[in-house]
């Protein structure tokens, strides 16, 4: 049974307790932007009846603030619901929090939120990870039973590892993006966090499916992932992402690789066929710049609607041009402006050929390289990150070493190719959690969950709540 632990509790109490924790943890974790006292009458008796959860604050909620943690949307209340929110409401899930995130989902730290940093319950001096930081922390701290985020690079799967929880990004088009404030349309995925694999398999059955409002959503049949769940991985061909392993140089990275190697041994013991795979390393080193160009070119256009005219920040000026300049100057943070400039640069007619179009070609090459090997296997696995959650004050490991370029960015391939990808807990390094990532072929979510389930059974790390911080 999915959501076993929460369903054991009294149906109203579990929602009120959740709200209580969200409020109580706010001071230390700063995981919420809007806290919603639950109304427990007229809740639909669906498959998620009175299960408390959180939505990343870029998911539109009719009449409820949806800021995407940007000042320009600080007063913005949508007049419609995102499809995911509608689906969850129809199954009786109870929304408790709109969660903190990097501004407009642009970042991997949750340090760029207009509402302040979000902290990791395993060490309050450390980041939650991002961009879906608030959503991750609300699950790892036990405040919510699950949470919805979005994943453009690795914005759910990276923080999942830092928070000892499960983070799922299914196939592109598997979950409708309608009503999710975008970062980059061709890379954006609705993704989510749970405390264990079974919950995540069950949740996808509810979240997935064609939505006519999102023409990129798929007609592909939605499987009964939860009932198909099995940890029998005998004969499953699992590839080891060798470029990631080889890029590990730092002590922490080597510690993480040690955990990973132990896990590989266990997978073999369970009957999996494990093979190392080594991709063209130049292409792997190109993931980050390619991602940065494509995502920000799309983002600069995606957010051109935030002009101060119709909603959000609406500072009045004498001309349209002044309205746009004033609202956008005041409304966006430095990080966002930086990315807009880069995106805009890449879109200029005279630059497009050697910036955006080149990046799109490299994206294609990376995807081809990856799929060429993956198509003959069931999954590819690697540590979700070669570091533990960085310290808030850490300026970041931007040394363009392979450990950074590949070790910290390889999960972006899942977005480039739209592949199902999951991060589950793998172990601890200096008492801090680290995760392992499993990526499978398109629409092979069931395989993904099964391998993740097997790993969960090997590590025994599930339903870990970090309440004492």
């Amino acid at each position, binding site marked *: 049974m999915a959501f076993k632990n929460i369903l054991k509790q009294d149906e109203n109490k579990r929602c009120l307790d959740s709200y209580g924790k969200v409020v109580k943890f706010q001071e230390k974790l700063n995981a919420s932007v809007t806290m919603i006292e639950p109304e427990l009458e007229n809740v639909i008796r669906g498959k998620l009846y009175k299960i408390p959860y959180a939505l990343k604050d870029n998911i539109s909620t009719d009449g409820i603030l949806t800021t995407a943690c940007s000042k320009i949307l600080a007063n913005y209340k949508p007049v419609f619901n995102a499809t995911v929110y509608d689906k969850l409401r129809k199954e009786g899930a109870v929304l408790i929090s709109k969660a903190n995130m990097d501004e407009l989902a642009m970042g991997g730290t949750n340090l760029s939120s207009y509402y302040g940093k979000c902290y990791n319950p395993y060490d309050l001096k450390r980041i939650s990870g991002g961009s879906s930081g608030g959503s991750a922390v609300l699950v790892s701290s036990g405040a919510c039973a699950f949470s919805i985020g979005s994943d453009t690079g690795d914005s759910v799967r990276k923080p999942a590892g830092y928070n000892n929880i499960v983070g799922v990004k299914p196939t592109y088009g598997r979950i409708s*993006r309608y009503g*999710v404030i975008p970062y980059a349309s061709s890379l954006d995925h609705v993704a989510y966090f749970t405390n264990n694999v079974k919950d995540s398999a069950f949740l996808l059955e509810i979240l997935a499916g064609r939505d006519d*409002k999102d023409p990129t959503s798929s007609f592909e049949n939605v499987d009964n992932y939860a009932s198909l769940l099995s940890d029998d991985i005998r004969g499953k061909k699992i590839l080891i992402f060798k470029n990631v392993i080889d890029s590990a140089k730092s002590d922490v990275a080597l510690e993480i690789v040690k955990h990973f190697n132990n896990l590989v041994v266990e997978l073999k013991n369970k009957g999996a066929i494990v093979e190392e795979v080594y991709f063209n390393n130049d292409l792997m080193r190109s993931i980050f710049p390619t991602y940065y160009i494509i995502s920000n070119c799309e983002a600069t256009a995606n957010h*051109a609607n935030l002009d101060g005219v119709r909603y959000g920040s609406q500072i009045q000026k004498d001309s349209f041009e002044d309205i746009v300049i004033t609202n956008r100057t005041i409304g966006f943070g430095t990080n966002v402006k930086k990315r807009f400039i880069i995106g*805009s640069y890449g879109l200029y007619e*005279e630059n497009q050929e050697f910036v955006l179009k080149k990046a799109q070609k490299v994206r294609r090459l990376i995807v081809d390289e990856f799929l060429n090997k993956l198509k003959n296997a069931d999954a590819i696995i690697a540590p979700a990150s070669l570091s533990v959650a960085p310290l808030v004050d850490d300026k970041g490991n931007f040394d363009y070493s392979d450990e950074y370029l590949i070790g910290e960015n390889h999960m972006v391939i899942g977005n480039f190719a739209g592949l199902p990808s999951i991060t589950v807990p793998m172990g601890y390094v200096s008492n801090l959690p680290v995760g392992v990532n499993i990526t499978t072929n398109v629409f092979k979510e069931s395989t993904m969950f099964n391998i993740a389930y097997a790993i969960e059974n090997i590590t025994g790390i599930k339903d870990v709540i970090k309440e004492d911080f």
Partner: protein
Amino acid sequence: MNYDVVIGIEIHLELKTKTKMFSSAPTTFASKANSAVNEIDFAFPGTLPSVNKEAVKKALEVCFAFGLEIDKLLKFDRKNYFYSDLPKGFQITQQFFPIGRNGKLNIKIDGANKEIRINRIHLEEDTAKQFHLNDKTYIDFNRAGNPLIEIVSEADMSSGLEASLYVEKLRQTLLFLGVSDCRMEEGSMRCDVNISLKEKGSSTFGTKVEIKNLNSISNIKNAIEYEILRQSEILNKNEKVTQETRRFDEATQTTVLMRKKEGNVDYKYFPEPNIKPILLSDEFIKNVKNNLKELPDSKIERYSQVYGLNDYDISLILSNYDVMDYFEKVMVFSNNPKNISNLINSELLGLMTKNNIKFSDLKISPKNFSRLSDLIVGQEISGKQGKEVLELMLSGDDVDVIVETKGFKQISDESFILQAVLEVIDEQKQSVIDYHNGKDRALGFLVGQLMKKTKGQANPALASSILKKELEKFK
């Protein structure tokens, strides 16, 4: 000095669909400001575009009508710029792969055909409408997101007349296809003209001036003719024409400067990531092609060959979509195209003008109209009576009821007429004698008496021949 005139035309056509290009909001025209709008049209964050299939179908129809090559892979791009009438901060259009390329249409000028090439037709969405009042700007988003096609001609025209004929022919065809209202004054068909002059015979093009938003076919002609004069004068003075955008001022019949063009604006076009390329199935395309409405050229041929109408009548019927439409609806019931055409052109249209009736308000059903024609052709009522009946039919009354009430119906029953003739001969013996004595007027008098007796309903030709025959017997 003489110049070659080079004219190209871009037309923005609002497609007649129920919903918008990328949203399910209705495309109603006259509704209250900002009422026919949903979250997509306002570009609320997180909304996504869904392509309107009906708009694609209509765009394809236009492509087929002008013989364009179809791109089966439908792709959209973003045209990025900030403006208050553009809610998303970009317009979704088809910059790189238009739905149709390389078409043409023929215009008739001085009795000869001239081919005007169409470079491309692409789908896009409309912007919001702005109103300026005092120092404030008001925005109505009802129009935002309405489906448009842009029809771009090659610079194949060289006079105001040619340009106006091109637009007229285009408009007629588009109306006949039923893809748009084509109301130029109301902006559902908007016309921009690019015009430049070069030395006669030169291969170097002159500087292009754009005249925007011409709202009638006569304005197109007048604006171009004025612009040719203006540019000629500049060139005659050895000065340079500046690249700029102008508008036509109806009051002065001149073009006036709107803005100078300083370099090309970079719209940073790139493929729209939220719409994956859509492969139009062969079946879908074939279906559109096979169900294409009849085009004007084909109608002209059919009216002439099948209906035997003359060029003048055909041109009258085809000059107006509503007239053509009514004519064809009547022809469903009729076998007398000539009489129908005459009745419409010389009677109905006049009556409608006189009574200020539009076709949309016309209460004469096509079936009734056809019946009226049958009565006249079958000589059951006279042509003169027909006119009177037609006027009465404007109220919506049934033709037979009117004829009946008015007692107009001609009687062609020979025995009935013979009976009346015999009675008249019996009553008017003197006139019969006069007739036989060669007094011509006597016959007229007898016919008059006969018509009086039959309340004017006797078929005049028949009555006259029976009367003459019977008179012979009394010689």
